[in-house]
């Protein structure tokens, strides 16, 4: 990034972590509020709450579609370019559902229709939560085994938690729901998030040299990594937004948000904890 230099020598660990801590607290509060309203930290999409999603290309306007499907619990109509539409219906009973299917295939024979029943959604939701928990525990174990030192390992796990919490809160802000694709994206984020953290920790702990220099070197590499990944995912996001490929578009949106938070959490949160850990260790000696 040209003239920008990552120089943290002037900042104390607390100063470094102040911004992430404030954002983290806001994120946790907003997730709590959302849990109180919807039962889940992130508003569940049709995969988890049940419902019907329809992807189609039509010259009909949103209003026309609304009129055509009046009498059905239509939730939202997303509009892409090229007349792409993404229509969501809330869960309904079997009879109503068959009526809807017939109506869709009559007017829009080329649509993609996905329907998830309420109880199946519940099962999927449970499993998704288990998946997230197991992933997290698994990741923490690997990190602890790899570093075998407490504070640096905790730092990595903490910044991963922060990434997830902030991303989840941001999903609510951007109107992204928690469904199967976005759950996968959050899991992927665990992987991406620890990538740069591990690089940072390895460079600081296992390399010779001054702390500030090591951490600056790590930043140079880390920021290339994250921006390269980001650019690939932005590319994927653009194409799938324009092409109305909802699944990939949602995955890429979550990854973009997550990677941006990851930059902050790696180079402020994790680096802050590491700085505190290293300076504290350096202070100890026999005289």
């Amino acid at each position, binding site marked *: 990034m040209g003239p920008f230099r990552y120089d943290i020598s002037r900042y104390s660990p607390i100063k470094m972590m102040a911004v992430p801590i404030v954002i983290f607290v806001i994120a946790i509060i907003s997730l709590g509020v959302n849990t109180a309203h919807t039962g889940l930290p992130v508003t569940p999409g049709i995969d988890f709450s049940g419902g019907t999603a329809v992807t*189609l*290309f039509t010259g009909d306007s949103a209003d026309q579609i609304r009129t055509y499907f009046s009498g059905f619990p239509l939730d939202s109509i997303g509009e892409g370019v090229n007349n792409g539409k993404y229509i969501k219906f809330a869960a309904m009973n*079997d009879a109503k559902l068959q009526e809807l*299917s017939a109506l869709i*295939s009559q007017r829009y024979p*080329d*649509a*993609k*229709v*996905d*329907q*998830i*029943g309420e*109880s*199946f959604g519940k*099962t*999927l939701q449970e*499993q998704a939560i288990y*998946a997230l928990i197991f*992933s997290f525990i*698994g*990741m923490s174990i*690997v*990190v602890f085994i*790899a570093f075998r030192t407490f504070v640096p390992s905790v730092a990595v796990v903490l910044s991963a938690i922060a990434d997830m919490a902030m991303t989840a809160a941001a999903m609510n802000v951007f109107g992204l729901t928690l469904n*199967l*694709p976005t*759950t*996968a994206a959050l*899991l*992927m984020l*665990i*992987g*991406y998030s*620890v*990538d740069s953290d*591990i*690089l940072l920790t*390895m460079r600081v702990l296992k390399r010779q040299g001054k702390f500030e220099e090591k951490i600056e*070197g790590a930043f140079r*590499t880390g920021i290339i*990594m994250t*921006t*390269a*990944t980001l*650019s*690939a995912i*932005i*590319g*994927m996001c*653009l*194409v*799938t937004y324009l*092409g*109305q*490929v909802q*699944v*990939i578009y949602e*995955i890429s949106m979550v*990854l973009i948000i997550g990677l941006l938070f990851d930059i902050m959490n790696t180079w402020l949160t994790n680096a802050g904890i590491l700085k505190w850990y290293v300076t504290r260790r350096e202070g100890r000696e026999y005289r």
Partner: protein
Amino acid sequence: MLQGERVVNIADLKEIVSDWRVALYLVILVLAIISIGPHFEDGQFKTNLQFGLDLQEGSWLQLDFQSVVIGIDTDKPIDQLTADLKAKLDADVIQVAPSKLEVRKLVSKEELTKAFDSLQAGKIVTYEQGVSKNTADDVKQILETKINALGTKDAKVNTLTGMNGITRYIRVELAGVSMKQAQDVVGKQGKFEIRVQTTGNDTEHVLFGDSITSVGIPSQEPAGSGVWGVPFTLSETGANALRNASINTGAVTDPERHHLEMVLDNRTVFSAPLSPDLAAKIQRDPIRELLATTGKGTSALNDAKNLEIHLRAGALPVAVVIAGSGSVSATLGEHFKVMSILAGIVALLFLAIMIFYRYREPSIVLPMVLINASEIIILLGIARFVQQLDLSAIAGLIAVLGTGIDQLVIITDEILHEGKVPSPNLYLKRLTRALAIIVISAATVIIAMLPLAVMSLSTLRGFAIITILGVLVGVLVTRPAYGRIIMYILSK
């Protein structure tokens, strides 16, 4: 690579390729391309890749078993208990494990507890909706048989068995089939009939499949005798019809010359005489509980299993409801396919631009991007055998592109650290250190994705499997090769 005096000549290339890691990478890359098998067929570009339902026309159905599996704690003999429960609940009850029963009806726990109390049958320890793995496999077989009859070649039936060994859902995927057709396959039953031989090979109608009220699972009768058979129950009218026909045709007096034939969709699937014992009984009363035996041994067991399916006439032993469904039209499937390819290309392009912006050195950027792209090719080559490509698998591929470039950057920077030093030993040390970082981050990605790969979250499996495979290919094949190539280029 082709800058001024640093032109790579043939001898240099030979030296790079002679490193076993690079050689292995190239061999695998070639194998992957062969495996993908791009070719032209009737002027159209084709590959061996298998596409999932998002990317081609088709439908999927997720079926929810209307059945429960209960763990029990009882003093009563299990046989007695199942018989009692069967009568009490008016449902098929079978034993699936020493202290586990499968009740083939969606009965609430309260209702079951009440039944247990009134029978003084002990306690219900566990209660779960679903069926045992065996039953799930039977259902799968029945569905597959029905789908085969449809002539669809691209069909998949997957049971999703939880960690407790209980299957709650079964998923049917049918390529090239509309939603309506798919629902018919699951719902449609064959025409089943029992006929009796009159004179010679002529037969006459006795009863239709609707007279069969329940069909049991293949079992040995009497237990331990080694003789396999399928028990089934007739309705009262069915039993009367059978009695009348048996007496009128003379089957009760001369069973050998008056076989009973089971006919499914006008095809005889089973033919056997009444046993002397049954013949005598039928002469006195209508008999509702019958047993069709197939003989001794494994082949007899298989016959019994097939007979069970036939007796049900394609009906599933357990009722199912549609828990989820979806369909994609041919045009949208094609659209998604084109968009996925485009997304991949644009992602790679954006990534290449960013990498070039950071390193400004074609001799680094070129191998990096090429290796990254070839990783996707290798992955596709492997994926064709293990995973069909649907939208989430494609997202996984692009995610692999992301982790891949991360790790290539780590290697490059670690080797470039503190400038170029023409000492192969130092390079090697740095490469080893870079690989250590990579192995740890690869392990975390694999661990993070593992739950998704083993859990039954249907569509996300593809994403997880592709990501894990991608990371493995990276760590085992492409990263070590890249390390050697970049070392070679930098030390020139």
